[in-house]
């Protein structure tokens, strides 16, 4: 029984892996001050392309490379329209969300339901037998291991390395980064594309592993991208917290499944659709501290209570990179 739960949790870690790639990709992009709203479309398109490529070439690697390349290209479009042409990032991102989706369905149509290759699971001998840890982390497939590495690497890069600090600076205050020698817009191009590439890898992670195959409109990926975006905010632009968000989401989904029989009388939709409202609730918690009315009402409270609540809220609060979504021109 205990073992079953453990395996269940291991399953959650696997389910979250693609979302982690997408969220961390977006986190990196947004850290540079650019919003890539196109995730939902990008993931669908790259899932399709990755699948088709690896079916045609039957090389998994090429499939993933194709995904990454397309993800980066979509990001490039966003970078160009928003950074160079100064158009609204949200607008461009939203259009690409729909455009990529329809492209995926249109171009992918001939390849529906074809049998395709699939990433094998790859238990790590030695580690896999460690009690608990082994089952949880080391009986997964290569992509899951990569997701672990990605979390650590992204965190290390953003907060520990010199270029990472500059990345923060660029998103926080481009003008200041500029006088410190950063080529702000080039950096934004680069990071947007890196982030896009990571998002682009999430696609094949589904079509070549988590949800192997391409089934067009019924593939069951339409929506993942939005969830990943929400998790990015929940994660407060911090890879570790973002990963936590992804795991939390997968956990909620899993609970929805295991709890279903025990709730005969409440509509099954309640559990199935629960994760997103809960995600909103989470966003509420991390944002409500930034709202003006809270300040006002707090002011009404007795000092001690006021201080306490204020501290709690500040602990929960996440604030986006200051220049997020705004173009930069040096003077």
């Amino acid at each position, binding site marked *: 029984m205990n073992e079953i739960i453990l395996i269940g949790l291991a399953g959650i870690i696997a389910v979250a892996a693609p979302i982690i790639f997408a969220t961390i990709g977006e986190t990196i992009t947004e850290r540079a001050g650019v919003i890539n709203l196109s995730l939902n479309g990008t993931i669908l398109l790259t899932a399709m392309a990755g699948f088709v490529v690896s079916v045609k070439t039957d090389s998994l690697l090429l499939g993933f490379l194709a995904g990454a390349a397309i993800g980066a290209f979509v990001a490039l479009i966003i970078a160009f329209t928003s950074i160079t042409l100064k158009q609204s990032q949200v607008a461009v991102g939203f259009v690409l969300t729909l455009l990529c989706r329809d492209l995926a369905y249109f171009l992918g149509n001939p390849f529906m*339901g074809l049998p395709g290759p699939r990433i094998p699971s790859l*238990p790590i001998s030695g580690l896999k037998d460690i009690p608990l840890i082994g089952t949880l982390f080391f009986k997964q497939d290569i992509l899951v291991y990569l997701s672990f590495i990605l979390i650590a690497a992204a965190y290390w890069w953003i907060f520990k390395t010199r270029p990472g600090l500059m990345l923060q600076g660029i998103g926080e205050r481009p003008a200041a980064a500029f006088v410190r020698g950063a080529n702000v817009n080039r950096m934004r191009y680069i990071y947007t594309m890196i982030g896009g590439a990571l998002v682009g890898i999430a696609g094949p992670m589904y079509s070549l592993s988590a949800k192997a195959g391409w089934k067009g409109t*019924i593939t069951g990926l339409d929506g993942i991208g939005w969830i990943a975006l929400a998790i990015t905010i929940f994660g407060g632009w911090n890879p570790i917290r973002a990963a936590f968000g992804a795991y939390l989401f997968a956990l909620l989904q899993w609970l929805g499944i295991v709890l*279903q029989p025990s709730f005969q009388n409440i509509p099954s939709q309640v559990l199935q659709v629960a994760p997103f409202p809960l995600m909103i609730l989470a966003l509420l918690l991390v944002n409500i501290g930034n709202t003006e009315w809270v300040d006002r009402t707090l002011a009404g409270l007795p000092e001690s209570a006021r201080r306490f609540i204020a501290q709690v809220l500040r602990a929960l609060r996440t604030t986006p990179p200051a220049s997020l979504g705004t173009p930069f021109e040096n003077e």
Partner: protein
Amino acid sequence: AKPTAAPTAAPATEAPVVVTTEAPKEITFGLLLVGPYNDHGWSEAHFNAGLYVEEKLPGTKMIYLDKVNPADRPGTTPAQLADELVGQGATVILFNSDDMKDSATEFAAANPTINVIMASGDQQWAEGKDFKNLPNMVNVMGEMEYGKMMAGCAAALTTKTGQIGYLGPLINDETRRLVSSAYLGAKYCWTTYLGKPAEELKFKVTWIGFWFNIPGFTSDPTQVADDFFNSNYDVVISGIDTTEAIVQANKMKLAGKEVWAIPYDYEGACDEAPDICLGVPYFNWGPSYLGYVTAAMNGEYKPLFEWVGPDWTNINNPDTSMIGFKEGDALSAEAKANVDKFIAELAGGLQLFAGPMNLQDGTVYLKDGEKATDLQIWYLPQLLEGMEGKSLP
């Protein structure tokens, strides 16, 4: 269930259907598919039936439109799309899904000269709860109950843990009766052939909430399948449009777990992962469609409600049997033997929907010795006693 002509169907002489006096030798029939024509599932089965008709009946031409649902074709109704097909010269229209029920009714009423075939509807069932008097419509449905029973049987004969999982779509009468059939098949084979007590068989259904996965709105079938396998349900029967069950089973298998799965709907479904596929209950609409189109061609089209079972002489005969069960490579020899025995028994008139039988909440469904009527089966109000899972949406 025998074909039951709708009582309103007047004698053929005044059958108000085809207007031209002598039957046309050329005929175009239009097919409206709810899903992609190549979905390796429900819709592809119908599409192939269309090809079958074209092949068997010279002078017929098929035109089709797939993804006929308001999500994929915003702002359209199947009736309107049927008009499009008529515009292209179709004089017979096939609606292939429950989704299109009302449109089919509306269209049939609006176009008395067009012969309408509606798969999985019950408008033409005089005894049914949703009867509409439509002289130019045929309702046809395969008795997949039998297919599911065979699936359940194969599962019961294979499971090592005595736990069978059923990956359910959304909850309604149809899906309930299919799950229950699988359960009955499983229980029968478990007790009769393996001689094990019924209580030792666990049969659990988990509903994802839709016919396929929509992140953020349904449960993820991949996760459901995994959860089954991980919690020692070593056989999963799929009731949804997509193939997560066998895909995940295959993955587990490769990871060294001993698991099996049974897909749904489409004859070729096992091909995706033969090693773990115990078999697939599938629809073979071809023969029935051939019949209706021929009738239309010869001006003998009659309104009808048909709930067609397998051709018991050979359930896998493409020219005669509506319901088939294609045994998979993963089905062991002795299990296979027993499944065949089970099929033979069904052919011999074995009726599993027979009393004493209770509904999930313990209320009596069938009294001792009572056999369920088609109505009782079609409109099954709950899961059956002994099954685990939600009965009501």
